[in-house]
């Protein structure tokens, strides 16, 4: 297993945002995480990426205990993520955003920079450029804050990929994308998994999840109420009641 969560819990005041959740994610797949609003999906992601600390339970990544590690340490170990609602460095250029994403893989070039003609990060700029091409992002010198919303989402994915992760967590990546963009996103995810990446996909768009994921876990009120293949999930009465039923009715 690449990522294992062992009965992890997080409370905010009296609310159990995440309650004793077990997860085991095998490498080389897209793993879906769904649930109604307020089910604890984003809290769970924040626990895995180190932005929040678990109250109890343990998290293992690639066989090592990573419970309580800081976000930057987890990125160095190979966990990258995007954010619900996009958190780009808006005042930096598109290329600079991706270069910051490579921070964990770059040696400090502080001293080599002092040499007047040195451009020690040429190789990294090349790789960043390739990622921009792959995500169909032109204009590397434009400010990230000026991009259209769909472009900002793809730039955030490019930035996350720049750290050469083994696990990529996408928090509602299709929000604000039109159908062709979301279809391209699905193709991209398939291609990345074929290259050996593991993806955790948090998504509201049930169709995207069902069409992309090998396995899906369903959260409701902080608890995992079901896990299985997309067809098993669609057949589960508990899920239907908690999530799909209400979605269908709407």
């Amino acid at each position, binding site marked *: 297993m690449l990522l294992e969560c062992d009965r992890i819990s997080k409370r905010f005041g009296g609310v159990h945002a995440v309650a004793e959740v077990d997860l085991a994610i095998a490498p080389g797949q897209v793993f879906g995480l769904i649930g109604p609003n307020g089910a604890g999906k984003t809290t769970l992601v924040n626990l895995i990426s180190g932005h929040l600390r678990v109250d109890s339970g343990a998290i293992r990544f690639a066989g090592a205990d990573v419970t309580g590690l800081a976000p930057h340490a987890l*990125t160095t170990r190979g966990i990258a993520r995007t954010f619900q609602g996009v958190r780009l460095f808006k*005042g930096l250029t598109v290329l600079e955003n991706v270069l910051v994403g490579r921070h964990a893989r770059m040696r400090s070039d*502080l001293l080599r920079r002092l040499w007047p003609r040195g451009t020690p990060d040429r190789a990294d700029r090349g790789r960043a450029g390739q990622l921009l091409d792959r995500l169909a992002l032109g204009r590397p010198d434009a400010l990230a804050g000026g991009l259209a919303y769909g472009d900002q989402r793809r730039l955030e994915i490019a930035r996350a990929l720049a750290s050469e992760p083994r696990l990529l967590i996408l928090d509602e990546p299709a929000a604000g994308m039109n159908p062709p963009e979301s279809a391209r996103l699905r193709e991209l995810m398939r291609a990345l998994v074929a290259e050996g990446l593991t993806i955790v996909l948090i998504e509201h768009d049930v169709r995207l999840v069902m069409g992309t994921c090998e396995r899906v876990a369903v959260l409701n009120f902080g608890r995992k109420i079901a896990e299985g293949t997309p067809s098993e999930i669609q057949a589960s009465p508990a899920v239907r009641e908690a999530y799909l039923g209400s979605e269908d009715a709407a």
Partner: protein
Amino acid sequence: MDAIVDFFRVYQTTIGVIGINALLALSVWLTLYAGQLTLGNAAFMAVGAYGSALLGMRVGVPFPVGLALGAALSAVLALPLGFAVFRLRGVYLAIATIGFGEVVRVVLLTLPFTGKALGLNGIPPITELWHIYLSLAIVAYVLWRVQHSTVGRAWAAIREDEIAAASQGIAVRRYKLAAFVAGAALAAWAGGLSAHLNFSIEPGDFGFTRAVQILVFAVVGGTPSVAGPILGATLLTALPEILRPLKEYRDIFAGLILMGVIIYLPRGLVTLAELRKTRRLHEIGAADVA
């Protein structure tokens, strides 16, 4: 030729103070560039000024060694202070560093060997203009190069979004601390140069007013680039001299100019060129493309 020589003779002190103020403005630029508002640099300047002056006068340490030791002492003080205050953000961080400044000022007023309220007198005036401007040239070059290094990019990322920066593998706390400690050492170096430019120093020289003044240099000049703080310090230090013919109305005009810059160029004087460019782009309707 004679005119130039005369100019330098008359304005020697002002020219020296401009260089020192530019160094101070760059010292606070370091933390501003990483998105942190700190107001402790007047206190670090005091540490460098008192440290190097006392080491020179009482111990007989050579001038450059005294400057370096003052800067090192300041860095050593900044490290635990930064550790404690970087839990805070924004205005809370600013207030905490003001508190540190007050502590330093009161310590200087009480210690037996700092001359208390009278300060130190008879400091040998051994700072030459070239000491100041060589320091400024080196510091400006280094910071300009650092801006484009992995470290400079990490600082910019922290300024833009701390949470996202941490997710890119940046050890946010460590980078903030590095900016703060480097700024403290630089402020102390400038303080040492300043103490040996004048004949005397006293605790009042390094109070809250001085802390705000340093910040204003950097902000008015503009924090997007290294040139900004230098420009801001130069203009605001020279302004009283330029406005001398206005006599008693001088301070009023200086204040109005300051307000004008902040209102019309909120990102600082260095963005003046940028502004003209965007205005031209607006005219041809291409602003959103640029």
